[in-house]
């Protein structure tokens, strides 16, 4: 708060629009009169919806490149779809080694809408992996993580990890062959941590071997623990977005006049909330041109989300979610294959034999993860254009290329098995 009063730019930029308390009433058509109208007014007076709506919807966002900035909200919508479909799956699913499989088999054979819902949950998670990756890529390319938005990036990376965790714990639930062996391999990985690894594996499995306790624990992680963390982090991520405003990308900060200094000062003077971004380089603190989030940006967001959700619905219906044979610890022929988004990591395991297993899993992946988290603190130059940041772009291409190549190798290996 004190921040706000010291900052003259900001207080000067306070909106001079008509009183915003009447907004909600404005949504009620003129024809409606009487109790409904009064009811709305009463509700608004007591609860302050208009104020809230105003704060959420009438933020300024950069004008150019809006389609690229839809990916964050698309991620959010997809996560909400996961919550929605996941909660509905709980109408049927039983987290027990003897019944998990049969409860889902029941959906497949005799409950078409349930099977559809399951298909939506699976295809939703696939689409989510893609879109969250695209969102991360776009914020990387536009260097949105630079001062003061470092924490937007850091919370984002942790969100990504949590979503990966959701996907892997979810894959452990159906207790078919794929699920059983995924559980076995994944819960075995911590055991390569020197010293405490064995203990962690035991805790995750609830014993030395994979069994009922393991399923119960994965279930608890998938249904309660990770979702709660996920929601908390999303809250933090969005809060940070509101605090600093959408950065957009370099196209929003080009100066057009012969007097760039004057133009930037002019922008600072006319900035609409939440701009100017506090603590930012002046050049990048106000976009050259903004629009209201509602309806301009929200329309684009909704278009993208609608396309994705329709895709998920259709794929969930026509392709659905597969179910292997029931879990069988005594198989000699089953070839465990990871979910596609874990293929790169699985392939990495092939390359680190014997004493290097732990090194490959923890040190190599750990270094890569640390570098990704620390990116905003490594790349602190004011440059935003990707071509002017070759020192981060080339190593990043290296990392991305490696992940893609690992995935391709994984496919190649499974194909040639």
């Amino acid at each position, binding site marked *: 708060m004190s921040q706000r009063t010291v900052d003259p730019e900001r207080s000067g930029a306070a909106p001079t629009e008509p009183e915003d308390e009447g907004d909600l009433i404005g949504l009620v058509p003129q024809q409606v009169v009487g109790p409904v109208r009064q009811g709305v007014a009463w509700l608004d007076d007591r609860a302050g919806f208009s104020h809230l709506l105003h704060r959420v919807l009438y933020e300024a966002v950069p004008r150019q490149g809006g389609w690229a900035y839809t990916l964050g909200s698309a991620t959010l919508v997809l996560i909400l779809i996961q919550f929605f479909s996941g909660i509905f799956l709980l109408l049927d699913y039983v987290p027990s080694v003897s019944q998990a499989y049969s409860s889902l088999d029941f959906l497949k054979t005799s409950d078409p809408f349930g099977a559809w819902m399951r298909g939506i949950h699976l295809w939703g998670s696939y689409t989510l992996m893609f879109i969250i990756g695209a969102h991360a890529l776009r914020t990387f390319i536009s260097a949105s993580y630079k001062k003061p938005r470092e924490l937007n990036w850091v919370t984002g990376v942790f969100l990504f990890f949590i979503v990966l965790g959701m996907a892997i714990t979810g894959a452990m639930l159906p207790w078919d062959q794929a699920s059983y062996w995924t559980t076995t391999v994944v819960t075995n990985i911590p055991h390569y941590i020197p010293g405490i690894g064995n203990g962690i594996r035991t805790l995750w499995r609830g014993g030395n071997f994979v069994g009922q306790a393991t399923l119960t624990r994965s279930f608890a992680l998938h249904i309660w623990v990770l979702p709660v963390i996920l929601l908390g982090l999303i809250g933090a991520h969005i809060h940070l977005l509101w605090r600093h405003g959408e950065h957009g990308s370099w196209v929003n900060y080009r100066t057009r006049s012969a007097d760039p200094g004057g133009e930037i000062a002019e922008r600072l003077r006319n900035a609409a909330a939440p701009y100017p971004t506090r603590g930012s380089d002046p050049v990048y603190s106000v976009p050259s041109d903004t629009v209201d989030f509602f309806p301009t940006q929200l329309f684009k967001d909704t278009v993208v989300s609608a396309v994705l959700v329709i895709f998920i619905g259709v794929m969930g219906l026509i392709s659905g979610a597969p179910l292997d044979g029931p879990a069988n610890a005594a198989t000699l022929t089953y070839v465990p294959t990871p979910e596609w988004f874990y293929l790169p990591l699985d392939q990495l395991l092939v390359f680190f034999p*014997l004493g290097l297993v732990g090194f490959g899993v923890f040190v*190599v992946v750990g270094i890569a993860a640390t570098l990704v988290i620390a990116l905003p603190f490594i790349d602190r130059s004011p*440059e935003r254009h990707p071509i002017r940041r070759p020192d981060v772009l080339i190593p990043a291409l290296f990392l991305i290329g490696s992940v893609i*190549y690992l995935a*391709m190798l994984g496919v*190649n290996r499974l194909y040639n098995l």
Partner: protein
Amino acid sequence: MPHLFLALTPGPVPGTVITNTVMVGCVALLHVLFATYLIGSTSIVAVSEVVSMVNHDPRHERLARGIVHSWAYLFGTGAAIAIFFVIFVLVGMWGRFFVTFSQFTFWVWFFEALTFVGEIVLLYALYANWDRLGEYRMARLGMTILLNVDQWFQMFFIDVIASQMLTPVVQGKPDNTSYLLQFLNPTNLPLTIHRTFGNVAWAGAVIALTAGFRYLRATRREEAMALAPNTHVEPVRALGAMPDGELVRERNREAAYWDWAGQYAMLFTFVLTIFQIWVGYTYAKEIQLHSLDSWYQMMYGWISNIFLGQFAGLGLLFMAGVAYFWRRIKAAGQPRPARRLQLALIVLFLLWLFGLQPAWWAGSYPDIVAAHLAKPFWDGGVEDPLGFFFPWKVMVLIGEMLVTLFALGTFLRARQRTPMIMGQASRGSQRLLIALGVITCLMMLIMGIIRESSRSPYLVNYSIQINHQVILQKPAPNIPLTQRPIGP
């Protein structure tokens, strides 16, 4: 290669197996050097075209034009070698093998030949009309990209053949005609990726080498004058008789251009070679999983020594690159990053020395096993445990990757902070570029030799033998795996 010495009696081909092997080796290697340069340099032309279209940098235009002109000569020569290779060497000397093999890879060869048609049309059209097409930049770029795609497929089809020889889909079935399986055989993917990057890296090295020479030539006069101020030095031939002021301007222009070109091209080589480290590792892994005998030859047989040469070459390449970064940044007057680069160079050198240790002091591992010397040297054997590929050389490779990435980041960042003035490079840095080119060339040759000799005694693994090109009906018996040391 003991089996080759046994086969000195003339076979059903002119010449001995040895001379024919040497022949095929030389011609194939030569052909590869030309072909890969063409493919890789086309990618560089495409990149330069895009850049110059965006920011109208005349240097990119000049470079692209220069490369396109080099194609005319090199493509002609390379194609002549290829024709000689196929008609005379393969059909004449290795006829039985080639005919059999071509029969079951018929369609692959067919498409390969088709891509040549496309390449001839596009390449010469571009060469002959490059300047005229300058008015239609988009069309020119489109043609260049099309040419590159065509060439990529050319490489891809040859990779199908090469990988099929190394890891045939179904062991012992040379007549396997499932094309999908042929295309997707286990080593095709790593080989394709390896070559996709390798082509550009090699083309970059050739350009860097050329640029190094041209820079030295442009600055020769002043260096000679600096060494002996009072002697008269003839100007460079190309600069001819010019008034002195003009001469200096010409010198500055030339030096600035070639300094820039060398740096731009060597970055391709350097960056892609970092990636090649682990692409190469995955390639070897795939060979190990699917053609253990070849892998065994490469890692434990006599070619393991050549492999060590490749290891040395890789280190040298990186050292030349980092030394160049260091010299260049120093010449640009940035002492801090220069010191970091110097440190990186020292670490690289130490890693290189460590990685050079041979794991055993003899021709091949089976030799020392036979002589009961397969134990550490302090136990009276000839093994040096610190020289084994696993885990030591793997560690060295990982270390080299990290250090080179660090050096690259430091260099690019320093260059970004204070834009570099081109034409100020020291002559030493340009000699390093020349060294980089030479080392890359040697590595290309070494890789060729390793690849081609790792299959012996086969021409096509498990199906066609080298010796008199015997075609096997059944897979040759594997040496039981339990009777020899297996690496991870």
